[in-house]
């Protein structure tokens, strides 16, 4: 165990592309944690998907050994954080495990939205935030101005911030020295009852769940019985140790202030929720660490195999993903149009997109996803009360006494210049203004109560575009309120396609219905016949578009040499059709199902 005074726990916060992962790589190299030869690009982002999206989806941590200029040996624990509002909770837990954060700002781009949002999260978590100006070797670099921006906008002293180039390894040493000097050493009592914060966990098919944690108080050892305070599950620790980029290094014990992992033959990731506190089963802490939230799916969508016969494959894939992602939820669902599939719950749309992509890539599935919805509640005329997770189960209007939709309290932080734009947006999205306050000269916080349904689709994108990227958003569920809801049905060629139905606020029905018909018209390719696209509420048509018939799709010449070519062409056509579902005589590409929710003009 390392002496508390020699430990520094920190994370790196930055806007996408400002060089967070590159800096992490350089720190690993500079401390000889990984040598250059072994350096796989951006080791901390080790999911393929993350690398492509340039965002870190799941947190990871790594231990660096560093001999500082003062001649002392230090242990620096770098804890990586995800960077999207869908994962705000995970970010906040990772930050809570640290005492400091290195804020990376691009020397030419300056401060951007995520820089702000994540910096505020770090400040709120009580962290010492240490600015670093990156990419100073670029011709457009303006480090002095950017430092001033940091001081003016965020209010952090920045004049002495290291000027570095993570890409070219310039001044990395000064970052390490700054961490040793300015990040506070952790506090904690190693003799006290165990309190360790879970900031991530991962399922491993050989060892069970691997829990990533920061020990706040007490000490954990192999053989010890531990209890997850929120889930109540008790396990005997099999192994604990430190995290190295190339694997895990077992240790005899992990004490307060340290960051590492434990395994305990834990079979389900649901027992080790992010934010939960690990304590001793025999000598438990009197209370858990603050800040735990049980995270519930916010949006639900139908997920179906494009090829109906792949239902079993989809079920197996979901089972495997669930092992690694406690925040995902699924249950079987049956649509008349699409057959057997699943209703899946997600934290938000990004989470949903990531899960969909993983299903398609890692399990080689072609999927159709229906428009996501929130959970509605309904008082029925027969006195019963139901929760509606899918439009497929939405009751007949005659049976509804009162419908309710979930509301959130949204907190939006942005520079004062954009208040007008934000208010317009929130009002348009049925938001109810609560209050507004200046956090300091450069940022305002607005509180709104908004239907969750208005937030989940493209609100964050709309907010970013209306605040030039500076707006940040956080929200929490505050309960259900009475609402006027209707179910909108879509008919293709006169036949209802249940998988395209969705629930919406009644006053918006006409405008949305028209828009959706237009969207479907754009997304469904012309076919041999004219296809009417209609939107209806309870059997009454309220919008209509027509997809004109395809006039010409013919190969003019087909002689000896053309036959093989023509066959290949037909094969390709067939491949394309695999991503389509046929309803009656109408083929609908899988994208069309999602297109209905893109409202952007």
């Amino acid at each position, binding site marked *: 165990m390392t002496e508390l005074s020699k430990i520094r726990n920190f994370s790196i916060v930055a806007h996408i592309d400002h060089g967070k992962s590159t800096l992490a790589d350089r720190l690993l190299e500079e401390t000889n944690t990984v040598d250059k030869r072994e350096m796989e690009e951006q080791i901390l982002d080790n999911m393929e998907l993350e690398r492509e999206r340039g965002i870190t989806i799941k947190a990871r941590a790594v231990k660096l050994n560093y001999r500082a200029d003062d001649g002392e040996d230090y242990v620096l624990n770098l804890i990586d954080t995800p960077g999207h509002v869908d994962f705000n909770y995970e970010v906040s837990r990772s930050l809570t495990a640290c005492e400091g954060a290195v804020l990376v700002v691009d020397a030419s781009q300056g401060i951007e939205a995520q820089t702000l949002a994540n910096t505020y999260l770090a400040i709120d978590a009580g962290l010492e935030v240490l600015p670093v100006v990156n990419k100073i070797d670029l011709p457009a670099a303006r480090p002095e101005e950017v430092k001033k921006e940091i001081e003016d906008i965020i209010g952090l002293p920045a004049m002495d911030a290291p000027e570095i180039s993570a890409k070219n390894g310039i001044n990395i040493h000064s970052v390490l020295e700054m961490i040793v000097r300015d990040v506070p050493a952790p506090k904690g009592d190693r003799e006290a009852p165990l309190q360790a914060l879970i900031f991530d966990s991962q399922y491993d098919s050989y060892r069970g769940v691997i829990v990533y944690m920061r020990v706040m108080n007490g000490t954990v050892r192999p053989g010890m019985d531990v209890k997850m305070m929120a889930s109540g599950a008790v396990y005997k620790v099999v192994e604990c140790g430190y995290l190295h980029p190339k694997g895990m290094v077992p240790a005899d014990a992990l004490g307060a202030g340290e960051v590492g992992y434990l395994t305990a033959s834990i079979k389900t990731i649901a027992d080790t929720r992010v934010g939960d506190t690990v304590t001793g089963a025999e000598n438990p802490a009197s209370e858990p660490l603050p800040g735990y939230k049980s995270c519930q799916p916010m949006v639900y969508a139908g997920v179906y195999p494009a090829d109906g016969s792949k239902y079993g494959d989809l079920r197996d894939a979901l089972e495997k993903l669930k092992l690694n992602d406690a925040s995902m939820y699924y249950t079987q669902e049956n649509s008349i149009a699409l057959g057997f599939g699943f209703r899946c719950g997600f934290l938000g749309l990004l989470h949903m997109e990531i899960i969909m992509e993983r299903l398609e890539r890692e399990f080689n599935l072609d999927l159709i996803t229906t428009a996501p919805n929130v959970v509605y509640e309904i008082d029925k005329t027969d006195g019963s009360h139901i929760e509606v997770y899918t439009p497929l189960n939405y009751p007949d209007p005659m049976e509804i006494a009162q419908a309710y939709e979930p509301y959130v309290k949204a907190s939006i932080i942005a520079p004062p210049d954009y208040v007008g734009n934000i208010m317009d947006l929130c009002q348009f999205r049925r938001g109810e203004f609560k209050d507004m306050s200046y956090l300091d000269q450069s940022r305002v916080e607005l509180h709104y109560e908004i239907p969750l349904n208005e937030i989940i689709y493209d609100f964050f994108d709309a907010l970013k575009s209306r605040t030039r990227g500076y707006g940040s958003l956080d929200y929490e569920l505050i309960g259900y309120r009475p609402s006027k809801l209707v179910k909108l049905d879509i008919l293709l060629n006169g036949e209802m396609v249940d998988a395209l139905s969705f629930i919406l606020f009644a006053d918006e029905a006409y405008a949305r219905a028209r828009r959706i018909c237009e969207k479907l018209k754009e997304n469904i390719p012309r*076919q*041999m*016949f004219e296809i009417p696209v209609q939107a209806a509420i309870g059997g009454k048509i309220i919008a209509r578009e027509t997809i004109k018939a*395809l*006039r*010409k*799709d*013919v*190969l*003019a*010449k*087909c*002689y*000896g*040499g053309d*036959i*093989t070519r*023509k*066959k290949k*062409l*037909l094969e390709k*056509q*067939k491949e394309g*059709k695999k991503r389509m579902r046929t309803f009656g*005589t109408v083929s609908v590409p899988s994208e069309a199902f999602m297109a209905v929710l893109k409202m952007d003009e």
Partner: protein
Amino acid sequence: MNELKPLGIYIHIPFCRSKCQYCDFYSIGGSRDPRLVDNYIQALMVHFKETGPRAADYLVDTVYFGGGTPSFFGADNLRRIFAELQHRFRVDRDAEITFEANPDSVSSGLLKKLRAEGFNRMSLGVQSDRDEMLKKLGRPHSYEQARTAVQLARACGFENISVDLMYGLPDQTAAQWEETLRHVLHLRPEHMSCYGLKVEEGTPLWTWKDEANLPSDQVQAEMYLRTVDILEAAGYRQYEISNFAKPGFESRHNLKYWMGDEYIGFGPAAASDFAGKRYTYNADIQNYIRGVLKQDLPILSECETIPARERAGEYVMLRLRTTRGISPEEYEKNYLMPFEPLLDAIVPLAQKGLFVQDGDRWVLTPTGFLVSNQIIGRLQEAQEKSEPLAKKR
């Protein structure tokens, strides 16, 4: 002795005066290098000699010299090749012997020689009756030359003349196209092929297609339907998507492609469907010459044995190009697959006027031909899901 099986022979002549803007066939534009020509003829002859024995129990009833531009290649060269072909294969006395020609390389000398040698059908590339259009397409001749070529061929004893035309050309209107058809009808060809222009990647036209002002799909569809009507009224029966003939003058050679009959192709890029295999040679004349003469290089670019089930798919794909269409009896007998799933797909299409029943055969209507890629796709889908008859029983 067993009865001889019919066989078509195609010989590719990859030489042209110049390359047309839209053309993606394999040919060399420019001068005819005498040594290359000679080597090529040599290679064809060796290839005939090699292949002949494998076709011992076949009777060649169609021969087709395509290109490229066989007329540009010259009568003497064509004669040499044809003479050797007759030496190595059994060629029927009544065989249909076609050569493709362009108006700029047709002379009475050439026509007389070929006619005397036994050539009996000329397929002339006319494409348009407007000189400015011909120029734009990169064709090295005028419409007047095309008219003269037809008259010369008649005078030299050709009684089966086909004219190739194209619609959907740059700046073309439906009215212009109708006028083209009427002008060409005055030439009284026995056969007409009318092709919708397809802009192929890699052709010069591809690079200026966006500025070409090509007629819309809607207009092209109109042009097509008018073609069928006008030619029908003039006594030409449509027998394939793009082909029309006076009764008895359908191209017997080309019908083999759509009827699933056997043919052997010679020359670079030539395709064969022979003895259960479909194969194609590389589109490279040097490769062909060397591969055939020295036998140290493979010349095949593709070769596949077509399983019966796939033949059933080809039957649907190819037969539906023709006005013979598909027949349940023929289908079930030849492929041992149930026709019923196809019928389920056909009936709703027939209700929409895309199919028509002719006796027990199902044939696409002209509107059906226009979207035949879609229809073929749909039928093949139905086919893939069906079980062979034997299994059902």
